[in-house]
């Protein structure tokens, strides 16, 4: 009973498209109605089941095999327009191709994907988060206002964190350690998931989720501090001159909640929460009243970081704080003298989940 009662190609295509829609992006109510109507045909349901299994098999490939796929070169958008033409079975001669390429490069250098391909440098704007794949197949999640640059040669894997914060999921390759350069320090590992945050004041926080990393000061000789090894759920903070907090235990998944668009507030001072929130917005949040600091307000739970007004509204609701929108900044004051207009509820869900 090898299901060789052939499915028409169109049905296979539709099944692939619906599988896609189920895996990513939203499905509108209208689309879902279409989808359910489509499923009425038992052959369609069968085709969908096949596609689901196919996708599962890919996602479930043993690490050894997945690694060989990850290491294959990306079909980068060297020339997006050209790539688009190549998508169709259209024959371009080498010469027209090359001529076209030069023109397109010139015109498209403004495009982020093309620029990044040439500079091997990837960045985010304030409030933005994105995920990129490096040449060696390692995955980097970039937090707000951050920049990494691939500086590896063919023989070694090296990335510079020039600004902000990045979470690295390193592709396994026992022969080539993966190095992150942060100013005058080096973080080295084999196959690991770890977060590096270069604070605006110059200090660096490294948090390990899995695997193991070694951190070394390359500044002076002798270095300011000896090499440190970090295991999962360990964190270290250092500045170019000294250790600020030596290796200590943390809840690592919580400290990288930014990947899900959330900021963990439990156990942090109010001022620290505000300064963290300020990383995600150009319109700065100011604590005008020194009494706010003195009050030692503690928050709990997580705040959404991609919708700052919603996060501030939530703070206003849960803490004795009033938020005033001044146009170019938000000002926080104590609720006691709340005569001014308060921030009104944003339309979106206050938890700020995207």
């Amino acid at each position, binding site marked *: *009973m*090898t299901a060789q009662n052939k499915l028409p190609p169109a049905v*296979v*295509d539709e099944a*692939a*498209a619906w*599988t*896609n829609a*189920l*895996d*990513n*992006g939203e*499905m509108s*109510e209208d689309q*879902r109605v279409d*989808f*359910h109507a489509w*499923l*009425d045909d*038992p052959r369609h*349901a*069968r085709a969908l*089941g*096949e*596609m*689901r*299994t*196919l*996708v*599962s*098999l*890919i*996602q*479930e*490939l*043993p690490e050894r*095999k997945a690694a*060989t*796929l*990850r290491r*294959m*070169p*990306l*079909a*980068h*958008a060297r020339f*997006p327009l050209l*790539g*688009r033409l*190549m*998508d169709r079975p259209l024959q371009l001669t080498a010469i027209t191709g090359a001529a076209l390429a030069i023109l397109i490069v010139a015109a*498209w250098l403004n*495009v982020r*994907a093309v620029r*990044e391909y040439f500079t091997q440098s990837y960045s985010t704007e304030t409030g933005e988060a*994105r*995920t*990129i*794949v490096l040449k060696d197949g390692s*995955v980097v999640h970039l937090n707000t206002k951050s920049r990494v640059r691939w500086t590896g040669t063919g023989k070694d894997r090296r990335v510079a964190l020039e600004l902000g914060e990045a979470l690295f999921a390193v592709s396994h390759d026992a022969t080539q350690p993966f190095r992150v350069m942060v100013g005058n320090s080096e973080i080295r590992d084999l196959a690991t998931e770890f977060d590096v945050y270069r604070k605006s004041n110059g200090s660096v926080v490294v948090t390990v989720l899995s695997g193991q990393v070694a951190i070394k000061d390359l500044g002076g000789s002798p270095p300011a501090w000896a090499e440190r090894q970090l295991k999962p759920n360990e964190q270290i903070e250092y500045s170019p001159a000294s250790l600020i907090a030596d290796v200590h235990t943390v809840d690592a998944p919580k400290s990288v909640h930014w990947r899900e668009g959330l900021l963990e507030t439990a156990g942090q001072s109010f001022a620290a929460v505000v300064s963290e929130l300020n990383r995600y917005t150009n319109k700065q949040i100011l604590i005008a009243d020194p009494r706010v600091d003195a009050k030692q307000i503690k928050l709990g739970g997580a705040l959404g970081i991609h919708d700052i007004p919603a996060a501030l509204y939530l703070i206003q609701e849960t803490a004795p704080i009033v938020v005033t929108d001044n146009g170019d900044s938000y000002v926080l004051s104590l609720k006691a003298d709340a005569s001014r207009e308060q921030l009104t509820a944003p339309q979106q869900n206050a938890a700020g989940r995207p």
Partner: protein
Amino acid sequence: MDTGDMGGVGEGSVLGRRDELVEELCRAHEPQLLVYLTRMLGRVDVAREVIQDTYERIHKLYRPEDVMFPRAMLYKIATNFALMRLRRARLESKIITGSQGMEKVPDEAAPPDKRAMAEEINERLVQTIKELRPNLRTVLVMAHVQGIARKDIAEQLGISLKRVDKRMTKALRTLRERMESFGIDLLRVD
């Protein structure tokens, strides 16, 4: 059989280990499964019920040593329960004709060469993915091996979301055709 350690271990601890594996499997995939089923069914509460049905089925029938692709099995069972619900909701009066053959959960001893077959399926799959056109392969690997969101794929490759979808559809279709040509029946993989 491959459970050569059976003799030395008490029945209880073997069961315990199995339950542990079931728990682990369900817990590891639950958030994604819930999103998937909610998209499919349009309602979170129904999606939760389907997950419950799925877990019960797995608790009853899952034999770790027989299942080479636990994730595929989990999604297959969940998809089937979801389809059953949809069918029930849409065709209340009509008689449901013939199972789609999608509900086969191993109910008898697996053939001894199961492991070898799984290895072959994986090998064929990787080989086929490698042979895809680079455009198609890149999108597929980024999405399903590296787990990158589709907006980030579009951005890094400098292509539109629509194009990402198109390439993905093409890649999946090609893979399915190739797997079929190898005589691999995706409905019977577990």
